[in-house]
């Protein structure tokens, strides 16, 4: 079976001849369909660049990217959905219209848009909030709308760039748990970037640790915790050891 995501020898260099900065160096990885993969690493290690390339939003300098067997020369929302750090909802559209947005870009008939977007809002627990504008929603609710928007075209692959970074700790934990619930009903392949080690272990099937710039993958850690995950697991020895191992790796890479 072909992996959902396959990256080979990916490198990326920014800027011109003199101010060239190597952002990524020889990154190779493959993610099986339906897996939840979390990428952690120090700030500026090229995690976001990697995600942008996977989304077809940025070109790589060298190497090959295949998503569901094909290259990603440009964004393809039917294969890959992206959820950004700031919810990046359009403030002039209601929650429902924001979720409809990607559908309407493709000329989906209005009633069809309504129905699918409504169903997505229900999935993320926001039925009844469709007519609200983003500034009338809390941070967590905005990010739920953003997730609904990422899911509405039903892409098999979902990329998430620190989606909960702007939320407070409590909301963040709840949203992580919610995301796992939604994920378990949709069987997507997820690549999730975070700074939070706890979040990484809690969410992931596998954690990839990246080094400081130029970004390389320096460790792959399987998370053997059973699903569905529960908050009690955070107190277990296994959880603590995994988190510690990731922490050690990141520290080593920065030293």
């Amino acid at each position, binding site marked *: 079976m072909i992996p959902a995501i396959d990256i080979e020898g990916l490198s990326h260099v920014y800027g011109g001849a003199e101010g060239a900065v190597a952002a990524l160096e020889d990154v190779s990885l493959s993610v099986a369909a339906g897996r939840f993969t979390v990428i952690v690493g120090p700030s500026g290690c090229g995690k976001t660049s990697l995600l942008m390339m996977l989304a077809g939003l940025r070109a790589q300098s060298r190497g090959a990217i295949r998503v569901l067997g094909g290259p990603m020369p440009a964004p393809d929302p039917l294969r890959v959905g992206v959820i950004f750090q700031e919810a*990046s909802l359009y403030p002039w559209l209601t929650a429902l219209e924001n979720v409809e947005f990607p559908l309407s870009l493709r000329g989906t008939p209005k009633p069809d848009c309504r129905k699918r977007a409504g169903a997505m809002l229900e999935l993320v*627990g926001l039925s009844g909030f469709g007519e609200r504008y983003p500034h009338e929603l809390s941070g967590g*609710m905005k990010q739920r709308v953003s997730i609904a928007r990422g899911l509405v075209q039903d892409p098999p692959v979902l990329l998430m760039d620190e989606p909960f970074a702007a939320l407070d700790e409590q909301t963040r934990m709840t949203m992580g748990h919610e995301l796992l619930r939604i994920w378990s009903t949709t069987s997507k392949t997820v690549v999730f970037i975070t700074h939070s080690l706890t979040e990484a272990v809690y969410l992931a099937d596998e954690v990839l640790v990246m080094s400081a710039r130029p970004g390389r993958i320096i460790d792959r850690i399987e998370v053997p915790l059973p699903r569905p995950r529960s908050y009690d697991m955070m107190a277990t020895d296994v959880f603590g050891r995994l988190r510690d191992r990731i922490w050690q790796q990141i520290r080593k890479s920065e030293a």
Partner: protein
Amino acid sequence: MTRSSPALVRRSILAALLVAWELVPRTGLLPELFLPSLSSTLSVLWNDWQTYGRALLVTLYEVAFAMVIACGGGILAGAVVGGFARLRNLLLPVVSSLYAVPIVILYPVFTAWFGVGSESKIAFAGIYAFFPVMLSTAAGIQTIDPQFLLAARSMGASLPQQIARVIIPASLPTVFAGLRLGGALAIIGVVVSEMLTAAAGIGYLVTLNRTILDSPRVFAAILMILLLSIAYYLLSRAIERRFVVWQSVGKPLQPAQSTV
């Protein structure tokens, strides 16, 4: 004791000012020559409404054309300059420093070119308001969140879709700010130029009556300009509220209680 609402306080201040306007000259605190009473000012407007109405029409006509230059041209030019980094770096410093020049010194030149009729007022007020509108639009366009476009691209938006569905709606608040500013400055520009050299318009009535020391008539004209500016401001705010619901220009809406 209940706290009085800001609206009530505002209305009370306005009412107090109007009462003071009537009482200060009547009690002789200030001579009528310096400040004619509200009632004598209003009676001029009432008795001589044809003269003032005609002057208002001339002024409105000039303001309308000046606004087309200032707002139409200023918003378009600002959008183009603000939208392209290279153009911005090239032009903005020049425009900003030009902006510091008091453009009113050019007005005599404009009367030489366009005559003392409406054309010179339109040209002067149009250019007077053009640069601030252009600068504010250019600044506003730059503040559009690049994440909006990145998200649109990730959802498969083509370039025309990005412009129509993201850039244009995201610029609306800037465009309306430009309209408000441009209209206000166009009114100033027209009235000032009418006061300097003209044979018609409200600004002309101010100058004409001041030279013959007819204070109630001067103040009647001033009152009209004041009302014109306020009316324009209220109208532009109403239109803005209608189109830019999400900006919550008035009271910010309470964010919903979080359920997460």
